[in-house]
């Protein structure tokens, strides 16, 4: 690289910008300034940000624009202009490289169409510079979406893929990777013969291989038709080539080959199901974990994609000692944030279904590292740590042993709820202020950023609630550590969130917390929650919230006899609310099941309790319409039939003083004949309960029916 005379003293940014902008600067000096700028910012994020702030990008783009305009004369002048094109394109590419602020600045300054025009330039070096910079832009989510469905665009893309220039073909593939999202787009690309061209590129340079692997994965993802086309005879040994690339000497190529195969595997269960390939994928990714760079950071995420929701893959990974390897990495030392997030997520996936994996993980004693991460600076790491806890605490054996219920874990979890609640509230307020208080031109950008921020915070909040829902399950009937850390207040506040996802998870956590809890603790929770809130949760617009609320009540009234009175107090408002919910024809079956169990549990109490439930299920004014009880007994869902039968069994439990009276009412409501129809129910549980209920009713039977 030719060095300028002043290379030992890089120009001050302000001076450089000045020279670029000034109309008085001679062209040669401008070219030198461009080179200088480019050299300063390459690989230097801090410098890029400094120059961005000073408005360097519009200046450079303006220079590119003038140089790209049709020029007079040829010869030396043309060569000079081409150098300017090359350097300005390179500088723009550098600003965009790995920096979203840079990409935004470059796009806002109108660089995109200018760079595109360079692709058809006669000078290969200019084409290279343009293609390289465009590729860097396309690595960002902020790049403009390419519309493949327009014929003109498809033709242009094909011309890129068919080019003899390596950087241009790579650019074509990058555009596919970035923008190919819908099935229609995948079909269109496949129909245009893109797969065949990409398969050829698998035999090209490193860049072409890598770009092609990524774009093939994007084309195949979730699309069995395109996947089978890829595997089809017209593409020859394409699959074999990709499998071979898992052994390529470059780590990034090995990673991308694995990703491509995983994409195919996850799309269609017809392919890549033999043990050999499954084990090979695990081993390649395990080995890539040792890479100290970006490849090592991404490997855990790719492994997650391989094993998520797939018990067989989790078992293969377990047998290959993947968990041990990940834990060795964790204990080896501190990490770059992305890698830590990836390891936590991969471990979470690995222990999502199999007890042997959770056991191994807990044996390796990394819990303290993950616990610390609950207070990490990065929100993504905190969320990943929460997901880790949620999955590993699916081990009932370890929940029972109290592994997860200690202050070290409870305190940061409660803190996460406090923090995100405050942040979500703060951001929500800002959102509404901007929505109503500011000029319309500010609305879009600001509220979009806020909405994204709120959405990300909510995801983190849901992750924290997921972990809490599990770790609060308390089998020992002693006071919960979570309660002692002030967790109940936070959960109760969240049951009033505007977001249904938060409400559902908060009520779910309360339901689990209350399972098998002492009466004293239940009272404490009720005091904080209040009956009024419970009633509004039963009537929440979302069925999932109603279901959890009724499950919570079911647990509150379980246990010793006096727990029922704690919940229902004197006015019976809650019981009425449950009865009303059951009587509504629009209630979902899951809501009905929980409601019936809540009522059934109450009906296992004393006479007053049984009468109160009876009044809800068989109100005094019975009209010709089918009673609730009969309707539920005829449900196609065996769980609802079972829950209803338990309610009847409890209402007619022998040796209760007023059972006779209730039995008569049930006979009169036609329940007995309905029950007799159920003694051969296909569901064993239903059949057995129907027998019991019939037996009890016949014991007091009204012979006249």
């Amino acid at each position, binding site marked *: 690289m030719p060095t300028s005379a002043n290379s030992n003293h890089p120009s001050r940014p302000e001076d450089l910008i000045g020279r670029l902008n000034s109309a008085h600067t001679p062209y040669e000096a401008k070219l030198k300034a461009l080179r200088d700028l480019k050299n300063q910012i390459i690989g230097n994020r801090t410098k890029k940000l400094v120059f961005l702030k000073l408005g360097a990008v519009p200046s450079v783009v303006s220079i590119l624009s003038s140089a790209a305009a049709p020029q007079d004369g040829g010869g030396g002048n043309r060569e000079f202009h081409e150098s300017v094109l090359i350097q300005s394109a390179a500088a723009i590419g550098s600003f965009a490289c790995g920096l979203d602020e840079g990409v935004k600045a470059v796009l806002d300054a109108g660089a995109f169409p200018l760079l595109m025009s360079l692709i058809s330039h006669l000078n290969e070096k200019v084409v290279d510079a343009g293609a390289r910079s465009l590729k860097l832009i396309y690595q960002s989510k902020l790049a403009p979406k390419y519309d493949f469905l327009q014929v003109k665009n498809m033709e242009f893309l094909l011309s890129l893929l068919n080019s003899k220039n390596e950087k241009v073909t790579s650019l074509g593939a990058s555009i596919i990777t970035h923008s190919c999202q819908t099935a229609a787009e995948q079909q269109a690309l496949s129909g245009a013969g893109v797969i065949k061209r990409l398969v050829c590129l698998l035999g090209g340079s490193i860049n072409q291989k890598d770009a092609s692997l990524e774009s093939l994965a994007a084309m195949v993802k979730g699309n069995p038709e395109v996947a089978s086309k890829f595997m089809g005879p017209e593409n020859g040994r394409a699959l074999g080539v990709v499998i071979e690339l898992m052994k390529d000497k470059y780590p990034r190529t090995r990673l991308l080959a694995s990703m491509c195969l995983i994409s195919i595997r996850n799309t269609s269960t017809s392919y890549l199901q033999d043990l050999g390939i499954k084990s090979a994928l695990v081993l390649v990714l395990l080995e890539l974990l040792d890479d100290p760079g970006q490849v090592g950071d991404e490997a855990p995420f790719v492994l997650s994609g391989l094993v998520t929701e797939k018990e067989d893959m989790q078992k293969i990974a377990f047998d290959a000692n993947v968990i041990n390897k990940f834990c060795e990495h964790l204990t080896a030392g501190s990490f770059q944030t992305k890698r830590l997030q990836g390891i936590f997520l991969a471990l979470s996936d690995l222990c999502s279904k199999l007890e042997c994996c959770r056991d191994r993980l807990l044996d390796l004693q990394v819990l303290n590292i993950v616990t610390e991460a609950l207070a990490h600076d990065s929100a993504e790491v905190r969320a990943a740590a929460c997901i880790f806890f949620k999955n590993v605490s699916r081990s009932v054996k370890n929940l029972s042993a109290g592994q997860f219920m200690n202050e070290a874990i409870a305190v940061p979890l409660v803190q996460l709820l406090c923090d995100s609640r405050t942040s979500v509230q703060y951001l929500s307020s800002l959102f509404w202020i901007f929505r109503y208080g500011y000029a319309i031109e500010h609305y879009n950008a600001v509220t979009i950023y806020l909405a994204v921020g709120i959405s990300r915070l909510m995801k983190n909040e849901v992750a924290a609630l997921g972990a809490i829902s599990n770790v609060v399950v308390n089998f020992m009937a002693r006071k919960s550590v979570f309660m002692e850390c002030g967790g109940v207040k936070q959960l109760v506040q969240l049951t009033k969130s505007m977001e249904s996802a938060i409400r559902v998870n908060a009520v779910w956590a309360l339901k689990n917390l209350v399972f098998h809890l002492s009466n004293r603790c239940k009272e404490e929770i009720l005091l904080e929650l209040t009956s009024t809130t419970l009633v509004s949760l039963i009537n929440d617009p979302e069925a999932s919230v109603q279901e959890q609320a009724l*499950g919570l009540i079911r647990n509150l009234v379980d*246990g010793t006899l006096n727990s029922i009175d704690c919940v229902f107090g004197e006015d019976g408002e809650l019981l009425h609310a449950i009865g009303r919910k059951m009587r509504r024809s629009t209630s979902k079956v899951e809501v009905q099941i929980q409601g019936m169990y809540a009522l059934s549990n109450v009906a296992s109490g004393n006479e007053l309790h049984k009468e109160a439930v009876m009044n809800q299920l068989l109100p005094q004014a019975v009209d010709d319409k089918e009673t609730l009880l009969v309707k539920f007994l005829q449900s196609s869902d065996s769980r609802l039939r079972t829950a209803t039968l338990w309610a009847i069994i409890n209402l007619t439990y022998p040796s209760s003083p007023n059972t006779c009276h209730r039995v008569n009412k049930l006979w009169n409501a036609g329940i007995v004949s309905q029950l007799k129809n159920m003694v051969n129910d296909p569901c064993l549980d239903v059949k057995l309960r129907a027998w019991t209920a019939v037996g009890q009713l016949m014991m007091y039977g009204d012979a006249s029916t």
Partner: protein
Amino acid sequence: MPVRLVEASSPSQVSGTTHGNTLPQPCSLLSVGQAFSGTQNVSSLQKDEAWRVNVRIQGCDLDHGYLCGTMEALNVPMADTPVVTFWEGEIVDTKNYTFFTGKWGATVEDDIKHWTKFPSFPPLLSQVEADGGKSLDLSNYPYIFMRWKEQYFVNVGTDCGLTIAGFYYVCFSCSDGSINGFYYDPNSSPFQKLELKSTNDGRSGFSFSTYELQ
């Protein structure tokens, strides 16, 4: 961790039904939170003794044939307080587990001898002798067979003078929730009997609590 038996690639089936239709169906009385109480007879040649026992179900994963809970033994002579242990159960569902134990020192003969002591077992005997019961259709059978193995002491040390080296052969009645079991430990008196009934916590009826892990 007990080893899971992997199903053979083409199991022989009674009446050609798929595995999905032959497993024991869920039973409300054998679900989380349910409690049972009764006795374990620990008689030996020297004396007759019975401990009061309370059992509570804590976890239930039917897909994997898994159950777990606690067992509390009261009036244990060597202990000042009730002794609580945590146990894990294998449900004989012909998919995850068969009637053959295959571990814990129990031979096939031991298995047959113990299962036969349950009145509900004889109808299944011939099939079990043939292949451990792999091809049985248990979906409508009103009894659930299990093995319960205590894993650790919850509230006492291992030096309390009690052993959890053996395991229980268990038969659960789906209709009334009663549980019968026989303790097997090559080093203890044979056929110590466990007899439990579903308890109501002082209620006039049955109450069901729930939790769901995310």
